[in-house]
């Protein structure tokens, strides 16, 4: 697949090392539609490609929105790009969140750090009243108050979503922080969660998801009601090269969103 050229239409720095780009096709064509949870391969010319989840609204159908953290060579190159610069895009790829199964259910959105980015399109959908969820709760854990993603949007989200935010650390820079300090499993542990009619979407560092899944299972949530977004090194993004093979699955093609009940044995297998 050959990347399509997209132009950076907007750039927002979320916090140090993390930024959001809105990408438009230079020809003015509408980009292919995506499902929440899918990703694009972003190509920094001369450097390499990286898989980055969609983090914008489905209603913004003129563009793709991606939130990116500087982690490696390609993301550091992309970080140097500004409004008007051009980037290569392949996608959308993968399977997203099972939004067609949430009607009448309570949806628990559990995100850690940058893991909120792939879940933001879900939140937008739910805020717009799509999919008929009975209730939506967001549990969001971040490293520090100044590393809370999309924090400015929370006030608007809170009209329709019960939001619990916690940070692992709050130092002198964050003296104004009056919210929770502690790990995300604590409010999750304290929450009353019905084991029936509830579905959980998780995205964040794998170790954080593991502890959250322990908590959810302890509360009686069935494995079939827990969905998580996985991350592995990807190259082709179409299930051909095998870089992202995870047990019998390719994260790029069969995921990145998986039902925990289907991948439990791989999720709990070390070195995979």
């Amino acid at each position, binding site marked *: 697949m050959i990347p399509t050229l997209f132009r950076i239409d907007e750039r927002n720095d979320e916090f140090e090392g993390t930024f959001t780009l809105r990408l438009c096709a230079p020809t003015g064509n509408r980009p292919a539609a995506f499902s929440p949870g899918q990703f694009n391969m972003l190509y920094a010319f001369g450097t390499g490609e990286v898989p980055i989840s969609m983090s914008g609204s489905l209603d913004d159908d003129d563009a793709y929105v991606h939130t990116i953290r500087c982690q490696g060579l390609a993301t550091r190159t992309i970080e140097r790009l500004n409004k008007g610069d051009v980037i290569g895009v392949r996608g959308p790829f993968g399977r997203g969140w099972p939004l067609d199964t949430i009607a009448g259910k309570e949806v628990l959105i559990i995100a850690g*750090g940058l893991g909120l980015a792939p879940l933001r399109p879900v939140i937008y959908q739910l805020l717009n009243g799509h999919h008929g969820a009975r209730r939506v709760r967001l549990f969001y854990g971040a490293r520090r108050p100044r590393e809370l993603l999309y924090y400015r949007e929370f006030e608007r989200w809170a009209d329709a979503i019960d939001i619990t935010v916690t940070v692992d650390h709050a130092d002198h820079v964050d003296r104004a922080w009056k919210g*929770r300090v502690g790990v995300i499993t604590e409010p999750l542990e*304290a929450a009353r969660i019905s084991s029936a009619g509830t579905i959980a979407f998780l995205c964040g560092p794998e170790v954080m998801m593991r502890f959250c899944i322990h908590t959810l299972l302890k509360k009686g949530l069935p494995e079939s009601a827990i969905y998580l977004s996985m991350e592995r090194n990807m190259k082709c993004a179409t299930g051909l090269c095998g870089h992202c093979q995870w047990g019998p699955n390719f994260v790029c093609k069969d995921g990145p969103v998986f039902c925990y009940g289907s991948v439990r044995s791989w999720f709990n297998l070390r070195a995979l």
Partner: protein
Amino acid sequence: MKGMAQLLHEHPFFAGMQEKHLDFIAGCGENHIYNTGEYIARENEPADHFFLIRDGQVAVECFVPNYGALCLQTLHNGDIFGWSWLFPPYMWTFDARAEDEVHAIRLDGKCLREKCEADPAMGYELMKRFARIVTQRLRATRMQLMDVYSLQWPPLDRGQ
């Protein structure tokens, strides 16, 4: 107006505890309201009480010289605070400060210790509950130490 035994019964910490034990413990408890900014406990001062938080947010802090108070954790409705009353020398090891108006049940540590000695079965029930809380806090602390949202664990195969 609810009695102390009823308030204890409703708190998650005492969930499942026998009524006779709750009635016994209730004799050591009193309701207390802490104003915003008020210290509930101070490091190195006598730890005479333990607290069941009914409403409000409590910051567990450590004072760092040339820096000030560092918040290590916040506690909320349904949480408990304080186990220093259980072990000699019965001194607080951290500060606890009310971040907003905190409604708490304050239980007298000395009174509780005496009741635990007098009724080992009740004491064991209480210790099991404290052990669970200590385990949860230790797990949370370990997770905090892992700093899972930092950049410290780049993928092994990122080709650099």
